[in-house]
């Protein structure tokens, strides 16, 4: 138990610290790297809670895809982050005040949190006892049966996102040289290669 508690505080502290570093570090590349650190530690927290599937998804999807994409964007696009940060301090007092008020409110609500006694019986899915079935299997058993509608709806949302990305970014440009495999293959040798007899001792 003590070990678990220690692990929890370790993961939680590193997550919070990494989160702070994400928004305070000057170099955007460092920000992304700290974000990855935060993801890894959150995954650790999930493992402690027995949600190993979520932990793996977090690592695979967020670290593997999203964070790497961020890195690409940060490195490839020429965004002047220093310029974007201008005026940051100007809004700091207001932002800090709102954040503080929200924090106090959240603490008040969290302190007085009530879970309705009926919640356990109302829960749509019983908690799977540890050791009986692993997470992935338990999720799969309901995802494609009870929740097939939500699964398909999520698929449609992703389809729309894909169509949207193509609509908004794909454009036909004039004067772009494209590769045409057929043209390349039908090109006769005589057109492509010129054979020259070069006598020894003189240039071409």
């Amino acid at each position: 138990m003590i070990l678990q508690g220690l692990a929890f505080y370790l993961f939680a502290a590193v997550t919070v610290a990494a989160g702070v570093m994400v928004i305070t570090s000057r170099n955007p590349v460092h920000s992304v790297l700290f974000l990855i650190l935060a993801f890894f530690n959150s995954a650790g927290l999930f493992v402690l809670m027995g949600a190993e599937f979520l932990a793996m998804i977090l690592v695979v999807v967020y670290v593997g895809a999203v964070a790497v994409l961020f890195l690409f964007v940060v490195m490839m696009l020429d965004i002047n982050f220093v310029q974007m940060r201008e005026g940051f301090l100007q809004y700091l007092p207001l932002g800090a005040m709102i954040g503080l008020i929200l924090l106090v409110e959240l603490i008040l609500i969290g302190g007085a949190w009530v879970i309705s006694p009926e919640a356990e019986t109302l829960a749509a899915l019983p908690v799977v006892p540890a050791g009986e079935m692993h997470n992935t299997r338990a999720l799969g058993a309901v995802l494609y049966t009870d929740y097939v509608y939500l699964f398909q709806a999520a698929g449609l949302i992703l389809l729309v996102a894909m169509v949207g990305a193509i609509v908004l970014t794909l454009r036909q440009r004039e004067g772009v040289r494209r590769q045409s495999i057929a043209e390349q293959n039908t090109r006769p040798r005589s057109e492509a290669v010129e054979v020259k007899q070069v006598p020894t001792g003189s240039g071409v």
Partner: protein
Amino acid sequence: MPELNLSAVLPELLLAVAGMLLLILGVFRGNSGTRLVLWLTVAIFAVAFVIILGSIGRNEVALGGLFVADAFGDFMKLLALIGSAVTLIMSLRFIEREDMARFEFPVLILFATLGMLLMISANDLLSLYMGLELQSLSLYVVAAFRRDHLRSSEAGLKYFVLGALSSGMLLYGMSMIYGFAGTTSFEALAGLMAQKVAAGDAPPIGLVVGLVFLSAGLAFKISAVPFHMWTPDVYEGAPTPVTAFFATAPKVAAMALIVRVMIEPFGDLLAQWQQIIWFISLASMVLGAVAAIAQTNIKRLMAYSSIGHIGYALVGLAAGTEEGVRGILLYLTIYIFMNLGTFACILCMRQKDVMVEGIDDLKGLSKTHPLMAFALAAFMFSMAGIPPLAGFFGKLYIFLAAIEAGLYYLAVLGVVASVVGAFYYLRIVKLMYFDEPAEAFDRPIGREMSLILTGSTVVVLLLIIVLGPLLDGTAMAAASLFEG
């Protein structure tokens, strides 16, 4: 194990499958197939309309309890389908002229409409969110559809960022409600709330805060004050047919959603949410009336007008009674026809092949286009709520419901706001009839435009004749929401 009951979701299934097939068709035909895809989409909407109309009066739960098909939902779905189909027909000429005739446009509108139908039928917080996101994501894309225009891109981006924020609030509220109740199903939530109220327990603060976040997120989607800031900019920046679309179908769907969420699972917490709805309703009515006065762009004016109209419709929700919901249904029916007609006029505002959007461009319209001026005047009078036009009856039943529920202040202030709002509607009529003509608009406006204009004018002028059957229909739809 709850059943799938696929027959109840037939219209939605049809739309989903048709959307994917049309996407494939569009890819094969390229942009030359836009016209074909657009008309096929309209045909699909018509088929879905007929299916829903044929099964009206049903009350079924489907897809494992996540989806409910009742008369209330069916009524709203019919309105949403009308809005989507008519705006698609209106947009055809525009997209061909303005060089945005790409086959993705009708397909995205189709997916947005599918999202609307799903959210109208949501019976669970999860399906609510899925439907809402499907709709919103498609709307963000169509708002930015003219990507080479700065205004359009700005509208899309603004809508996207603020929409994402509102989704965040919605999810946060949902998580708090789930944290209290342990369930996201509307039926289970309703049972739990009834049990708590019967036992005389005060609802815990966490649940109320969750409800506040949920209503804030939904108020964003219907652009009610104080969550309206995006509306004028998005309406102005988006291409005009897209604006017409925004002002009709998604408004109806989001309104259906907020009514269902407030009445079905949280109907017993009326005392908790009534004051929220009371406030946003009043604020929307007042802002819609006052801020519209200074506008010079007709699309911005229509944005403020739609904020005001949402405020009036919310009066019916603040009443929290069956009469109130009936008033909302009637109001939205009339609202959708007035808006379709007005936007058909706005789409005809072209001088020498250039779209104009200034209110001053309407000067002297009665001399250059007498019929169009007459139609627009009818819509403006109707929006101002002058009897015997349709808009008057919408407001009448809303305010009657408010008075019956004892919301005297709200009803009186609403009437005052509607008098103030009448000013800018009548100003347009004055410009058209009493000012010297500006440059005439291009002709011909096209057969489908004339048809839409005539149709919506007839509805607005002669609604009084079919008021009886319409009231029966809305009463039945409203009753289905309360019986569960």
